[in-house]
């Protein structure tokens, strides 16, 4: 990886390939208008990729999807303009998404996904050119060595229902660590630590390199942002980027489980902006009392799991609270088990799913319990106070209370959602996690709106000045 781009600091695309590696921002002049518009278009592509993944689209479907998305959003009348738009939009988003761990993570995985499918759409010559550009230190396996592994390599091909390699097939011998996805699916022959990667699999190799490069670049961009850009651009770009960050909450949370992750430090913020009342209440009580009884731990714990809090973070989260009351040791002894249990790590190892509204509403909280649905289980007085704290105004309040009196708790919750978010929720609320996801969607589309209606200012930005952050470049400078 250290070999990336050590030779050329300013990399110009090979004519044969239309896929840039985004090593360094080209010294292009960009109008502020384009700066934003291009970014929004690219964001649309990335968001659609993220949606496609969360719907479980297969690789072939993703390939088609990416091809179409790219045509729809990124095409420009002239080829050179399209290339510029590609590069400009990438670097703008790099700047916007470099600023927190979560943003970086999301951007990194979506850009890598985009790169992967665009790479597959390239011609073989273009692919080879890209590999050469990446300076991958791998040599094709020579004929003698190929003979020695030919049988095994063919066996692997057959095991994954691929035609056996031809006589002149090209294989690369690489450390198995470089192609984790091929190892995990047993799609390569591995011998003495080396994987034999077929030409049609090099995409994995290239993607790994791309990802690791971009990951480092994002960290450097972040550093550069905090150390200089933020200050230098305080009159032009910084307000835009900062504004974006306040209205934009992070990665796309429309993937309910597994794929999306939230981190510990975001919970506080998310609880205020996107938790339904039942969970907000539990969360606040936990912060207040540093304790929740079993029913509350289950309801909130599973919800948080559904929202994307991983096991490690969940344990850290609960421990941070509980240890203030019962001490860390007692937490480890008595409560940690329960949390792992929710994640299916203990006992029967089944995966518990977050509770639906129906389940929450039909629960029967007892003395000292805070779980259940506030619309059903709170006194009117307490409910009014709680809604007030969520920011529901007087007018909305009476509508909601009216629904509660008629025992339409979920409708009341839906009205609350609409009052708080200032947008409709046609499907209604059926699940606390759905509430969360819908809330995030609304907040995100507000961001997109913001980006596209922002007035075009006749300002010129030298893109390279603000986002040229190439790791190899830095290393090189140090040596001199």
């Amino acid at each position: 990886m250290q070999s990336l781009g050590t030779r050329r600091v300013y990399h110009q695309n090979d004519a044969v390939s239309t896929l840039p590696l985004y090593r360094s921002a080209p010294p292009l002049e960009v109008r502020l208008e384009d700066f934003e518009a291009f970014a929004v278009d690219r964001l649309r592509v990335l968001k659609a990729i993220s949606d496609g993944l969360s719907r479980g689209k297969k690789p072939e479907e993703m390939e088609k999807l990416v091809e179409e998305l790219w045509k729809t959003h990124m095409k420009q009348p002239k080829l050179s303009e399209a290339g510029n738009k590609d590069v400009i939009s990438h670097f703008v988003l790099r700047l916007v998404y470099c600023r927190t761990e979560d943003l970086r993570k999301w951007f990194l995985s979506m850009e890598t996904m985009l790169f992967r499918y665009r790479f597959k759409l390239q011609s073989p010559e273009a692919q080879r050119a890209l590999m050469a550009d990446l300076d991958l230190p791998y040599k094709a396996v020579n004929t003698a060595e190929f003979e020695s592994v030919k049988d095994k390599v063919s066996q692997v091909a057959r095991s994954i229902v691929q035609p056996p390699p031809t006589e002149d097939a090209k294989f690369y011998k690489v450390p198995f660590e470089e192609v984790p996805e091929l190892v995990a699916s047993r799609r390569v022959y591995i011998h003495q630590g080396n994987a034999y990667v077929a030409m049609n699999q090099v995409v994995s190799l290239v993607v790994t390199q791309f990802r690791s490069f971009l990951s480092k670049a994002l960290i450097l961009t972040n550093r550069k942002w905090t150390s200089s850009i933020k200050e230098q651009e305080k009159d032009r770009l910084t307000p835009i980027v900062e504004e974006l960050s306040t209205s934009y909450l992070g990665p796309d949370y429309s993937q309910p489980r597994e794929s999306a992750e939230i981190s510990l430090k975001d919970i506080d913020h998310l609880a205020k902006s996107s938790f339904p009342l039942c969970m907000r209440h539990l969360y606040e009580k936990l912060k207040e009392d540093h304790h929740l009884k079993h029913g509350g731990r289950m309801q909130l714990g599973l919800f948080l799991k559904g929202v994307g809090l991983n096991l490690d973070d969940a344990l850290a989260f609960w421990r941070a609270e509980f240890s203030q009351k019962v001490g860390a040791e007692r937490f480890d002894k008595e409560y940690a088990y329960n949390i792992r249990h929710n994640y299916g790590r203990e006992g029967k190892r089944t995966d518990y799913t977050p509770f639906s509204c129906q389940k929450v509403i039909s629960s029967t909280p007892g003395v000292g319990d805070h779980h259940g649905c506030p619309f059903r289980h709170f006194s009117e007085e307490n409910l009014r106070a709680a809604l007030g704290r969520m920011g529901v105004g007087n007018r909305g309040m009476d509508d909601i209370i009216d629904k509660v009196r008629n025992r339409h708790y979920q409708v009341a919750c839906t009205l609350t959602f609409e009052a708080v978010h200032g947008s409709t929720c046609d499907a209604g609320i059926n699940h606390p996690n759905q509430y969360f996801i819908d809330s995030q969607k609304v907040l995100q589309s507000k961001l997109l709106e913001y980006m596209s209606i922002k007035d075009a200012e006749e300002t010129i930005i030298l893109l390279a000045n603000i986002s040229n952050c190439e790791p190899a470049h830095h290393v090189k400078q140090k040596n001199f």
Partner: protein
Amino acid sequence: MNPGEAENCREDMEIDGNGPEMPAQRHVDIMPDGFNANYLKAYYGKVFPHSDIFKWMCYGHDGKHPGCDPTYLSRREFSFTLDNDIYLRFQSYTSAYELESSIKEKCPFKIDIGPVYSVNPAKRHAYAQTGDNVFTPVERELIFDIDITDYDDVRFCCSGADICLDCWPLMTVAIKVIDTALRDDFGFIHILWAYSGRRGVHCWVCDAKARRLSNEQRASIADYFRVYKGNENSNKKVSLVGPVLHPFLARSYTDVLRDFFEGKMLLSQNILSTEEKYEKILDMIPDESVAAELRGKWQEMRKAYGSKDDINVVRWEQLKSLLCSAKLKHIQGLRRCIEEIIFSFTYPRLDMEVSKHMNHLLKAPFCVHPKTGRVCVPIDPNNCEEFDPTAVPTLSQLLQELNMSGSRADMDDELDRTSLGRAVRYFRSSFLQPLLRSCKEEIESAYNSRLQQSKNNLSW
């Protein structure tokens, strides 16, 4: 806190039920079997190989070479479970003396080894205050945890935490399959297998490149080993796709699994002896009419069975010849089904989560299991058939041996007087010494290239 503690937690709870008995004064010869804190104190005092564990954990960074990293050991997490149920995480030590005296003083019921972090884990809070989130695992052995309780649906002799010599060979098979792949496929060399003290085995892969694997790379290796795709509600737990097996699976099958299943397990577990058991296997046959044909044969056979051939073997041969018969060639997946049955019964079942993350804790070798009193001794993968978990030295046995020879003051190595001596010698000669040799080489060559570099810089 991390997922690694699932195992710890289970074990911790076992400690609960273990009332410490403190005999006032007992004759040495009638030491009761089992486990108590006094025995453990003596064990840590006289038998436990402190310096070997220390040398291992240093990986050559023992201060003897100018290229050593003096902070290396201090960044390693140890965690102790004490007898009064106290759980101490993030312990760290800077010297052999510190480690040894802490173990002797605290007398932990269990010692777990965690990752090497970016900073001393005991001081992580101080670093957290600087605002930089620098406390993160940077090195960790690649580990595997195989627990026989995960095989409960394919062993009929015992269940839960019990083991016997009929089911233990499943662990032997797991060691063979995984060990071969780690060496031949992944090219690892420094591999330690250890008995978990009760119902399973642990594996530590200690090569430098194994210790530096990312979580993603660890997960890819764990997945490479995974063939179970089903769940509790599906009959078929193993799904093998494609017209041929991947070379790794094919080798495991022909070298280990098939012979073990046909030569041993079929008989020792009486896999086809009763209707209840053979129905399990018939369930795995994808074609209902084929299963029905076999069922008919086997029900018939039960009535008139008089042959002196073992019924399991006879039925298995019938199943195989029917599934491979030419007249059924048109039915998809029948031949593959034989392999799938054998894989379901014999293929290693790893606790995937343990292997996937760097920050998982694992019990140190040479600990004593608080329930069984047995020492977590190393297992030689080349002779793993010979390993007998029921013959592993127990705490009381070791102390007895020590006391018996107590008068012979000429013996300077306490260890050699006990039956643990062999285990420790194996640990040293087959694992530790080769490991330290290659660690030293690595430190040396890293140091030299750094030296070279700085020379170059000067000449510029």
